[in-house]
């Protein structure tokens, strides 16, 4: 950004610490009156060097590290990492384990969308929304706690399977939680879409055209709200997603309200997917017996090669590029997160809007600095 300011212009720094932000980053805004004429983002305040750390850990030790890329999407991060290693080492996963993985990953999508929506509500001055969604999110987290033994960082997936089977009574408890969540989602929709203030702030604001969204390299709900039906679960099916019936939720308007509505719809789809899984999943082992990469194998060597494995994160396309040199540690890991392009696209998106809309637009994109910095 050009630091020189003209007459009646000023530069405002949002951050590195600001209640609006999903983690520390600095947003520099050049304002002319109320209008944003120029913007840029500075990252690096929580750069953790996870890619370098992974090079110095064995494959199994890497699982808890990738959990911590972003605590909201821990399960899908694990899936991308474990899936990449499985592709490299050619490990088969039994069907029951695949279904359990889909269940926990969709639960992870539910809780991420719920928190994202609550934060968005808080950003636009609707703090009660945060209280509503955090309550429902806690129920989802208890379900995950039941399966994995942890609320946010699970370390649950293993190469060739999962750590534990579903506990007794999971189906009944999830049915109760989903019934209440379905009611709540109908409420959220009414709360949002029939509120006069919300309508004025969020309909027709922060509009992304499909072509711009493609050029900016976006993925996930922000892209699907512009009408592009890009979903890795459909385009590049992993696990058992090809056997499951679900639709890719899209909207056409591309404004803030469209992004929120896509997330609301996706939550209904996620619950539908989990219910299908619980009905369809076969009995069987969690690991194949001849797999030498089960939980009991401390040292695991992966054949030489490289692979790019991607999965659908709650925010979009999560990819791991992994290079192996045949040893027990990865030679190089590149984490391609969905939030990175989203954060990059923020300055062009907020240029020309007013300062008051910045928080609403940034909130509706559902960013996470922890993942962008890694």
């Amino acid at each position, binding site marked *: 950004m050009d630091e020189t300011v003209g007459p009646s212009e000023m530069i405002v720094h949002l951050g590195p610490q600001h209640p609006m932000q999903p983690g520390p980053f600095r947003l520099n805004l050049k304002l002319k009156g109320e209008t944003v004429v120029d913007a840029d983002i500075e990252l690096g305040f929580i750069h953790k060097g996870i890619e370098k750390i992974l090079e110095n850990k064995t494959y199994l030790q890497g699982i808890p590290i990738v959990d911590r890329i972003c605590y909201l999407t821990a399960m899908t991060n694990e899936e991308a990492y474990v899936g990449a290693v499985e592709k490299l080492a050619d490990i088969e996963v039994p069907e029951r384990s695949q279904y359990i993985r889909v269940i926990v990953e969709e639960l992870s999508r539910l809780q991420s969308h719920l928190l994202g929506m609550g934060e968005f509500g808080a950003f636009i001055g609707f703090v009660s929304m945060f209280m509503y969604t955090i309550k429902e999110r806690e129920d989802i987290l208890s379900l995950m706690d039941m399966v994995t033994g942890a609320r946010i960082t699970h370390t649950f997936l293993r190469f060739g399977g999962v750590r534990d089977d579903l506990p007794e009574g999971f189906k009944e408890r999830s049915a109760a939680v989903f019934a209440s969540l379905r009611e709540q989602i109908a409420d959220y929709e009414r709360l949002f879409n029939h509120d006069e203030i919300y309508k004025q702030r969020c309909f027709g604001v922060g509009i992304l055209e499909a072509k711009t969204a493609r050029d*900016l390299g976006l993925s996930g709900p922000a892209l699907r709200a512009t009408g592009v039906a*890009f979903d890795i679960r459909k385009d590049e099916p992993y696990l058992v997603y090809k056997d499951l019936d679900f639709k890719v939720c899209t909207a056409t308007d591309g404004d803030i309200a469209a992004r929120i509505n896509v997330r609301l719809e996706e939550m209904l789809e996620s619950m539908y997917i989990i219910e299908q899984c619980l009905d369809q999943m076969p009995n069987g082992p969690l690991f194949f017996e001849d797999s030498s990469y089960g939980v009991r194998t401390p040292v695991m060597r992966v054949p030489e090669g490289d692979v790019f494995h991607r999965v659908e994160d709650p925010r979009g396309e999560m990819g791991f*590029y992994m290079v192996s040199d045949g040893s027990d540690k990865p030679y190089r890991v590149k984490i391609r997160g969905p939030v990175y392009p989203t954060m990059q696209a923020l300055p062009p998106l907020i240029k020309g809007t007013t300062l008051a809309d910045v928080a609403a637009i940034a909130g509706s994109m559902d960013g996470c600095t922890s993942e962008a910095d890694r």
Partner: protein
Amino acid sequence: MDAKSIIDSLVNKFQDSLVDAKVDSDIRVSAYLEPEKIVEVCQYMKDELLFDHLSSETAVDYPKRNEIVVVYHIGSYDHSVLMTIKVKLPRDAPEIESIVPVYWNANWYERETYELFGVKFNNHPYLKPLVLPDELMGDWPLRKDYEGFPNRTARNLV
């Protein structure tokens, strides 16, 4: 559009500069490329083969071969084939043309590759560090011979 026809089209067009072009699976193709051709190939892929989504761009360091390999993963919103392009650069002076004019979101990936590996991207609009503090600039921390602060072993290489 399937993997086979994509590779055929690319090999036809850039016969001399593509090495080891192959179909890895139904949804993955890969090739090694001469560094001079990178912008031209990306432009061709974007215009003719619907590769409109730069999924990721990074580098891998091979000190024994004295090489840094820049890796591009280019996908598409319309079909599910993902192309991996690898470009070998000399480790002591890695330099390559920036692809920001073709793929807008390459900007940050190239800035990150620059600060972590020391790969210089020519004609990049703003080649400044992104996630690292200024003090670590020139250490190239993701290179294999980096021993960590304060042993700046890789500092004098580039």
